[in-house]
């Protein structure tokens, strides 16, 4: 009763509740799950520096509380010659298409989030989280504006002794193109299509913030809450993540990191698409 999509390079398995549970790639079979959750934005007293609200400038969850958005996901599966897709619906405001193209060695997660409901008067910061059994020991890697990858360690700074007061926000880093983790055997990397915040708060887990809606100004200068009600109900965001799973060491001359780099370029500098009406022409006249 499991659902499987994939190709000769990568295979994804979804459980009976509609969640991703397993990824097979590069000869490895790893337990990898993916879900959406949200942090509740802190509401503080902006007159006190250490008690500010979460807002446009700062990410500051309320007591690091995290809420899963769904325990069961509705899915539809489409399979063809070029692409296999699982359409997932998590709730009324979060859905996603997970797809594997015929020749790709990665999986694509196209998420759709919003408008984030605020009827309960709570600001929300929505994340996608991939959990794996990779033993990363608190180490993960984030890019430096698309160039080299920088090593990050949970609750640690390289050049001073740090005491992290906020366990989540204090470990968040800017992700412009990629976040990754690995152990001696396996590696997992996620490419983003826009700059996002991200972290690895547990061994083997990667999370990225995809959308946020907050009801208080953080008093750093903008003077407005990040509430974006200009078009009525709030904004809807749609974007893509590319998931790579494979061996952490190079095999047969091709490393997973090299493949990630190529896809990174193709994701951030995609082809320009130019459409022309060709009603009066036949295909031969066009040629």
């Amino acid at each position, binding site marked *: 009763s499991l659902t499987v999509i994939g190709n000769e390079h990568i295979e994804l398995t979804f459980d009976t509740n509609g969640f991703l549970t397993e990824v097979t790639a590069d000869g490895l079979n790893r337990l990898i799950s993916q879900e959406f959750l949200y942090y509740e934005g802190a509401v503080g007293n902006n007159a006190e520096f250490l008690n500010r609200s979460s807002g446009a400038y700062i990410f500051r969850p309320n007591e690091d509380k995290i809420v899963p958005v769904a325990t069961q996901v509705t899915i539809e599966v489409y399979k063809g010659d070029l692409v296999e897709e699982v359409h997932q619906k998590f709730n009324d405001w979060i859905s996603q298409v997970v797809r594997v193209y015929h020749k790709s060695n990665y999986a694509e997660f196209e998420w759709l989030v919003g408008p984030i409901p605020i009827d309960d008067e709570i600001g929300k910061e929505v994340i996608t989280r991939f959990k794996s059994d990779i033993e990363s020991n608190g180490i993960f890697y984030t890019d430096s504006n698309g160039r080299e990858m920088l090593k990050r360690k949970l609750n640690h700074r390289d050049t001073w002794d740090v005491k992290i007061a906020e366990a989540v926000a204090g470990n968040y880093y800017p992700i412009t193109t990629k976040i990754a983790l690995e152990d001696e055997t396996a590696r997992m990397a996620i490419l983003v299509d826009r700059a996002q915040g991200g972290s690895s708060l547990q061994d083997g887990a990667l999370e990225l913030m995809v959308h946020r809606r907050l009801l208080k100004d953080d008093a750093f200068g903008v003077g407005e809450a990040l509430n974006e009600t200009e*078009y009525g109900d709030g904004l809807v965001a749609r974007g893509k993540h590319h998931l790579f799973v494979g061996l952490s060491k190079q095999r047969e001359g091709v490393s997973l990191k090299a493949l990630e780099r190529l896809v990174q370029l193709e994701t951030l500098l*995609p*082809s320009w698409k*130019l459409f022309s009406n060709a009603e009066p022409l036949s*295909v031969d006249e066009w040629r």
Partner: protein
Amino acid sequence: DAHLSFMRETMGIMQHHDAITGTEKQKVALDYAKRLSVGFDACSTNIKSVLNQLSDGPVEAKATRPRAAFEFEFKTCSLLNISSCEISEKTDKFTLTLYNPLAHSTSEYVRVPVSDYNYVVTDNNGATVITQVVPVPTEVIDIFHRESSAKYELVFLASNLPPVGYRSYFIEKSENRNNFAKPQAQPKKRS
């Protein structure tokens, strides 16, 4: 040059730290979006002009033959991110030109929003390209303010796009619906 300069100036404004990080006021965010939109529209005139000259053939051959009678529009569809494009939805014959900005050749799976599921895609060599049609998710169709008749996405592999070069495809609605299978979802699985 005035078109390009408008975009240059807009890109200059976009270097401000508020534009980079999204810490601008809402009204300013709307102004940024408007400037970018106007910039794209302005520069589309330049793109159209240049691509029509290029698609007219090599410069050295021009003297010996008449200029192509048909002028292509080469329009960008800024709503492709919500699976919407006026030309691909509303016309039965259209071309898609893919310009590859990278310094190496690439292949890319292209997704074109369409209102039906029976299309034939032909590449610049006259070969028919394998296609697949998948439905646009209901949640996307229901997005507030999305005015689009695209219920499907036509998927095909655009192979070997040349480095900093382009390749065009001719996409035509087919009369013969029997050759095309409407995408069917597999039964929902529940525990």
